[in-house]
């Protein structure tokens, strides 16, 4: 399980972020409007939490990578680290609408 988590963790955080901001804007749409400032800030706060989670994940992968020597481990760390980078960029990119407001 740890191996799979290493490989997919960064992308899982991206998926959680995507679903989260979509759910927040949908809820905002029901209660007020989807792009009302309070809901945008809630989505931005959630995005910051996800960026922090991505950073934590990358740190964990980097630390784990130092102790790993076998082929499967190296693959998991390599895939996990690049996946974490892509996930981080994805989270930041998708948080842009919360700042711009549309």
């Amino acid at each position, binding site marked *: 399980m740890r191996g799979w988590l290493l490989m997919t963790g960064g992308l899982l955080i991206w998926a959680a972020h995507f679903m989260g901001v979509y759910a927040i804007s949908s809820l905002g749409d029901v209660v007020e409007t989807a792009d009302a400032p309070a809901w945008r800030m809630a989505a931005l706060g959630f995005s910051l939490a996800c960026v922090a989670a991505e950073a934590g994940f990358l740190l964990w992968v980097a630390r784990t990578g130092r102790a790993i020597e076998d082929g499967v481990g190296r693959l998991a760390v390599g895939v996990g680290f690049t996946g974490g980078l892509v996930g981080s960029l994805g989270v930041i990119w998708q948080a842009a*609408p919360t700042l711009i407001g549309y």
Partner: protein
Amino acid sequence: MSSETGFDPELYKRFPTQEGRPEGELKQLEDVWCGPRKPWEWITAINNNYIGVYYVGAAMLFFVLAGVLALLMRTQLALPLNGFLPQETYNQIFTMHGTVMMFLFAVPAVEALGVLLLPQMLGARDLPFPRLSAYAFWAYLVGGLAFFCSLFFGLAPNGGWFMYPPLTSTTYSPGINADFWLLGIGFIEISAIAGAIEIIVGVLKTRAPGMTLDKLPIFAWAMLIFACMIIIAFPAVILSTLLLELERALDWPFFDAARGGDPVLWQHLFWFFGHPEVYIIFLPAAGAMSTIIPVVAQTRLVGHRLVVMAMLATGFISFGVWAHHMFTTGMPRISTNYFSAASMAVSVPAGVQVFAWIATLAAGKMRFNTPALFAVGGLVIFVMGGLTGVMVAMVPFDWQAHDSYFIVAHLHYVLIGGMVFPLFAAIYYWLPMSSARPLSERWGRWIFWLMFAGHNITFLPMHLTGLMGMPRRVYTYLPDRGWELPNVISTVGSFMFGLAVLLWIVDMLRNFRPFGAREAGNIFNGPGLEWLPNGLYSLRSIPVVKSLYPGWDQPDLGRDVAAGRYFLPGAPRGERETIVTSPLNAEPQYLQRMPRPSSWHVWGAIFTAGFFLILTVQAYAAAVISGLLAVYCIIKWCWNLDRPMPQATVDIGGGVRVPTYVSGQTSHGWWAMVITLIVAGMVCLLAGFAYVFLWSRRPDLWIAPPDTATLVQGLVLLAVAGAAALAAPPALRLDRPRSAAVSALLLLVACIALAWASWIDISAWIQAGLDPKATGQGATVFALMSWQALFAGIALIMGPFAVLRWLFGLASAGRSATFELIGLFLAFTTVQGVFVLLLTRLFPGG
């Protein structure tokens, strides 16, 4: 990472063994894995070498049929105000073209490629559930042909391949045309899911020893991710087709805005499946490209790990783009932009793969044979389609191009470049392995250039026709709009494409002729295990894999494998067997007894298809009979499973001994059940989404839930069911005189409690005055309860099945797999019941 299972990798050093093999060992292996000897055995065959070829053949048949429909459409559109096809026929033809290409060709074709290639590529004798593959194939073939034949009776669906309501509601589509689509496609997707389960368990559990994840062929990686995506995405189309059919048949208003439904719900559900579907099709093709390009360049894939990451990232991000098909529906602008951002982001991992392929071609020395031409041609076309994809990911541009021929051009560039050309590359590349004869190189070049030119001549002008304002799905157009020339050019191109396919068919017929030499060998110098000498039993012995490119890095591997110097060199017990290994490190875990050919899965598939198809024509009694016969066949099939061997452990070669029977998390059956339950859970979760979504549309129409007493009763019954389901397998494993009886009765109690809980919940809502025909709340609550009741109904079949196995002496501590799987299913049904109960009673609250 340390050993997963406690297996000592030092044991691999015993291979290749040096002692001679017993006389007659190879003959016995050939006899055990023999092919059909009597005519009907061609139908009951289950070996992947047969089912895989049948599967690819059937998919290509549907490709040709849908291609003929495309030529009919292009003939109609060649001239303005053309009268070649009547309007209604045109509507049916464009709907069937899209539907057949997407559902009956694209997904089955890549799944078929997996069934055909994976066992040899992974070093397994066969995939772990060969009868399931065969069942999936026959269900797909029978269902697909019957579905296609609806065209000849004017009964084919005519609402477009994505069947948007309200156009497809009974008001605007009163005939049974739409029902054919809804029941037919829903059913065919079940067959696709069966194939995906087979592929996931196969890739994770039946690899050659030593084939750790870092040595897993890139095509197998692609197939693994592809199958996981099917498990997550396809439940959405199963649910959406189910809901629309319920609306049409029973008047439950899921999509009727006047009664609290919403047609946009269909779009959410359909595209949650529909857009990942594009990547579901693309990933295996990309896996084939990542396999073929290093071979044609005779060098290793540049950036192997990055390509694995890119495929994983594509798998994830593709689930965040579904609403880019809905930019014009009036979604909140900020939500639209989240999807726009994801749609642009998904091009990054696709780009990583494209650059890896280009770098590999640059690093090696490319040979311009036919697979290489198709691979590079596909790459060029896919990149062009990807670029227009980024354009339509931008909301303002999409508003202009939406529903125009620009989109038709874009999607054909992506799908033909991303899937059709790589598939042809794969056919040209792997056919010498599968049929032991290569296709003609000279013909292949002609076919490629005709197809490449035909594609571009057809679809490049469509960008312009679209930008000039020509909408999709029109059967004709007026003259003097400037659309005549691009349309006639597109038609000429489409016939060039058709000619290429015709030449390919002729070459394929020549290839499969029943006479002449069959000894192509490894003509492309491929490095995978599939290129080692093989037979119907796959490889003579299952090697220890030490490299990502064993054919290039392990000299003498082919000779030693063929001489039986590795694992499982024969079939000493006279059984079909394969080695099951661990998911990460591929350490040998146990010996799986494989099934022999039988007819039960074929009959099961025919009656299952019959149930859905007869339901379409509203012959309910006949449909029920067909359904009952299908259930009987499947029970008969399951009755013969779970058979331990007389020996508890066996030597699989080199003195390595493994068990012959396992149950629980180690067993392949447990994995398959878990994946099946994930599919069911996804359907339930999405139904929960539909429930919340419809509440958000018209909360004023919702009534208060029934009293709390029935909620408590339901929860107590579900708790009893869950406890009994969880207690049953450990009770059997206690291995006392009455263990089997107690365990079977516990399972029966769980089944009854589940059914009772369902009954109480349904009764309570009826008494509370909820009418499924009145509002969106009624429709979704009854849909959720019906889904749970369906599982309780299946449980009511499983409970007596368990009791019968106990009565026949087929349940014991050493034969516990069936009871464990039934227990797992019942535990899941309990959790699902709790979810349904709490969601419908507590949200949005009384």
